């Protein structure tokens, strides 16, 4: 397998940072950027071992749900 889980995690954390500061910026743009980074992270999970990939995909899905909720709240 060619991807280090740490590389996926860095992207997930990048998405978290975008979400964290979204309300200080243009939230719509920030959430769209976060989703794009999550898409990038999810694409990498296909190169991980099955269990690690499944775990990351579940975490990414949770974050997409978070973003959808934040958007309705903002």
């Amino acid at each position: 397998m060619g991807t280090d889980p740490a590389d996926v995690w860095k992207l997930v954390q990048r998405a978290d940072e975008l979400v964290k500061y979204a309300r200080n910026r243009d939230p719509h743009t920030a959430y769209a950027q976060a989703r794009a980074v999550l898409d990038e992270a999810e694409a990498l999970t296909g190169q991980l071992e099955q269990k690690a990939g499944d775990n990351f995909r579940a975490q990414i899905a949770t974050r997409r749900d978070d973003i959808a909720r934040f958007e309705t709240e903002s």
Partner: protein
Amino acid sequence: MFRKRDPEMAARIPPGQHLTRGWPVLSASPVPRFDPATWRFRCTGLCDGAEWSWDEFRALPHVTVTSDIHCVTAWSKLDNTWDGVLFSEVAKRAGVKPEVTHALVKAPYDYDANLPIDALMDDDVLFAWNHDGEPLEPKHGGPLRLVVPKRYFWKSTKWANEVEFLDHDQRGFWEVRGYHNEAFPFEEQRYSWQE
């Protein structure tokens, strides 16, 4: 001030951590409003149940504990003095059922953190209202936060207002978002992909 040649202090710093003299603020949610007239602390799940107002909670037997903080974002802060009520005292008064193995300590905005009940019953685990002799600032979890010194600090739920006792493990807010279920700093258990 920490110096690397102080081996006793260096032994208290887990790998990958650095000391801070300040206290960085990291939260997943806004700071909840605190109204002592309406605030309640509840024990739910596998227990007889308990509920305290702010005045009632403050009147419980309390302790002073000094311990270190290790945040997963790599800072550590040593020799923090906390005043509050031991988790074990809360559990005793809640009438925890024998089948309980884990608990979720909850806060507003759907925040929670999970731990084994044995870890929570340690004699250094408390719900704290004072830090270094001063009321805990809202940004740091005031009026009340859990303090679990042996785990990374996200396990120490800020603005704690409920304990749910469980007969199984159930991952909390950060644990389902990729952080380690156990979170031992000296083993650098930061992320769930390490499990």
